[in-house]
């Protein structure tokens, strides 16, 4: 007998989730100070186990109470007999909780399939990395995941490789999220990866492109920074490396490239958001990309995606002198933003980094251009400052959709102008 009782107690203890079956939430609007006083004394009644969501503080404000099922009768009689008006806000609290639980589970299940992933939302690094696996699983002959190395805090850095075969075909590099606070950049890259995977075989132009060239897409180029924007500081821009001799962390990864390194437009103050770092390629995140590009040796385009300002820029940033290919790059850029604007009328400016936005040394597309990758571009996506880095999630898909038109425009040009 004792054994049975013990087992029963264990069973009950193991399921110690509180339930709220039949509990109701009442909203009470008192009509006088006197009624307010009555409610305040109701609050003192411990055995009713009333849970005040809005306490009785003023006769101007509503009073919300979650009333356990067992006390419902008593409370309602009390209110009615004192002529205190009330309404039932929630008829059954447990029902609402059950629905919320199943909604959350449905959401999680939805996100497990790459096809029903919510592209119109911002996601954590973990979610994005999991989704990348499902994309690869869904398109195994087109997409593969390339681990290009680890970040400072030892997170894997993954590029998605879109390839229909060959060996080191001419390739297009696209990176997003090198500055972690520019969330619409990573979000756009996720949508774009899905777009490339699903449009192959359906869109003639993209199909011909992928039959001849490879696309490498790095969705989160600064994973440590991205995690920190979720856990620490939403406005974090840099890497998370520790700098010797300083209590400040992080290097601006887009001032760390070996192109005019240490020149104007970058700071030597480790606490600065544009700190260039102790030396060129000191940041492992930058070095990993450099290594991949150099060892591959056949990249024909290098596109870096940032936010915000609505700009499409080409080199240089470290100097305001025109690069030899400026006229061609300018023309490609103009054609691309025209395509972009055709969707929603979004206006972009085109020009070299130095002239359009500011002189900035140590930038990635300056490095790629100086390393022979002629078609080097940097995007600054939406918006122009109203929301800035905090772009509402409902603008992710419109931003990604219009940007895709520009990307496609550039990639098609690259495909059609081999060098």
């Amino acid at each position: 007998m004792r054994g049975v009782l013990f087992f029963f107690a264990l069973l009950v203890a193991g399921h110690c989730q509180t339930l709220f079956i039949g509990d109701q939430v009442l909203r009470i609007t008192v009509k006088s100070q006197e009624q307010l006083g009555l409610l305040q004394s109701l609050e003192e009644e411990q055995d009713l186990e009333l849970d005040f969501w809005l306490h009785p503080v003023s006769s101007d404000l509503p009073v919300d109470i979650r009333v356990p099922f067992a006390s419902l009768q008593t409370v309602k009689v009390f209110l009615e007999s004192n002529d205190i008006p009330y309404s039932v806000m929630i008829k059954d609290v447990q029902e609402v909780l059950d629905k919320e639980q199943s909604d959350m589970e449905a959401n999680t299940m939805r996100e497990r399939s790459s096809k029903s992933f919510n592209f119109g939302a911002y996601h954590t690094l973990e979610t994005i990395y999991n989704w990348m696996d499902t994309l690869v699983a869904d398109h195994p002959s087109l997409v593969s995941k390339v681990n290009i190395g680890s970040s400072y805090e030892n997170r894997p850095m993954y590029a998605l490789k879109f390839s229909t075969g060959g060996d080191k075909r001419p390739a297009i590099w696209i990176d997003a999220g090198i500055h972690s606070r520019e969330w619409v950049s990573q979000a756009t890259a996720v949508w774009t990866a899905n777009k490339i995977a699903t449009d192959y075989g359906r869109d003639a132009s993209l199909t011909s492109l992928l039959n001849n060239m490879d696309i490498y897409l790095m969705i989160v180029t600064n994973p440590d920074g991205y995690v920190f924007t979720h856990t620490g500081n939403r406005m974090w821009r840099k890497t998370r490396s520790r700098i010797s001799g300083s209590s400040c962390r992080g290097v601006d990864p887009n001032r760390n490239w070996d192109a005019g390194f240490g020149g104007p437009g970058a700071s030597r103050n480790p606490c600065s958001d544009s700190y260039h770092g102790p030396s060129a390629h000191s940041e492992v995140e930058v070095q990993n990309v450099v290594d991949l590009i150099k060892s591959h040796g056949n990249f024909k385009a290098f596109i870096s995606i940032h936010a915000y300002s609505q700009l499409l820029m080409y080199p240089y940033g470290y100097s305001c002198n025109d690069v030899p290919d400026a006229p061609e790059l300018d023309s490609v850029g103009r054609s691309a933003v025209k395509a972009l604007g055709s969707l929603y009328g979004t206006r972009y400016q085109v020009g070299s980094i130095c002239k359009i936005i500011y002189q900035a040394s140590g930038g990635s597309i300056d490095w790629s251009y100086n390393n022979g990758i002629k078609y080097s571009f940097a995007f600054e996506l939406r918006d122009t400052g109203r929301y800035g880095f905090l772009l509402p999630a409902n603008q992710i898909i419109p931003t990604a959709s219009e940007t895709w038109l520009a990307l496609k425009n550039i990639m098609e040009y690259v495909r059609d102008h081999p060098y």
Partner: protein
Amino acid sequence: MSWFVYATVTLLSLVQGNPTVKSSQQQAPPTAEQSVGYVQQQQSTLEYNNMEPKPALTPAEAMPVEELNPSHYPARRAAHVAQHYLNTQHGSPFKLLGVDRVVSATSEEIAGVGMKYVVVFALKEMITNEPMGQCSAEVLYPIGEEQAPPQVQCSCEGLLHIDTKAQEEALYQQLKASDSLVSGHNIPDSYGFIAPEMKPFWHLGGVASSFVMLKESNESTLYNMAQVVNVTQQESQNKELTFQYHVLLHEMVSQEIIHWKLLVAWCPAEGVRVLQTEWQPKCHHCVAPPSNTTLTLYSTS
């Protein structure tokens, strides 16, 4: 609050234009190099003389007028300064002005005075997205090592066409009648979301920030308000409603996020006034609380 004691007292009036700074202490903009030491520079008292006459321009001292590319940053920064100025003059919880695009611009060095930009731009009301015609602005960045606010003159053809009086009056009456004080934080939140009832306070924060952004602007800056960290309505002393703001400004050229605390007064009749401003030093180990995205009614264990 102790910050009241230490804060710089700044009196800015909406009614008169062309505020100028009179300060004998260094007032460098918080650039990357100087942001660490900026706090010392804020101890001076700034006075804004609204009636200061504009500097006389001797034709002999004027240099050639240079035509600027409207896409390039010098013209865009000057237009942005005019935008800040317009918001200090006309902004409200229901009216926020923005540069839609730069049409044309020139610059001219005035020896001994500064750089004068004349910029024509298309204006937009940012809340309704309404185009508001063109503005022509003259932005004069004064010469000198210390930061001094640019002087702006601006005329716009379509400014009076948007009437927000009714909305402003309604909000004002609602707040005056309420027993509780409004407060909010992280506007927008990490995901860009703003609760509808907080939007007017977001706009008000933007207008108030414009006073600081105008004051801090020079040829090497481009300011936007990045976020309202928090806003707390204060007890009203008079007909104006007052709010304590903590805002984040994003300075594009240095890429810095700069914290400012502002004491803001508003009523429909007087417009927006910034009573006090205080620069906050950069917090290296700040941990911002993660934003709530899901609203749970109850937590089950």
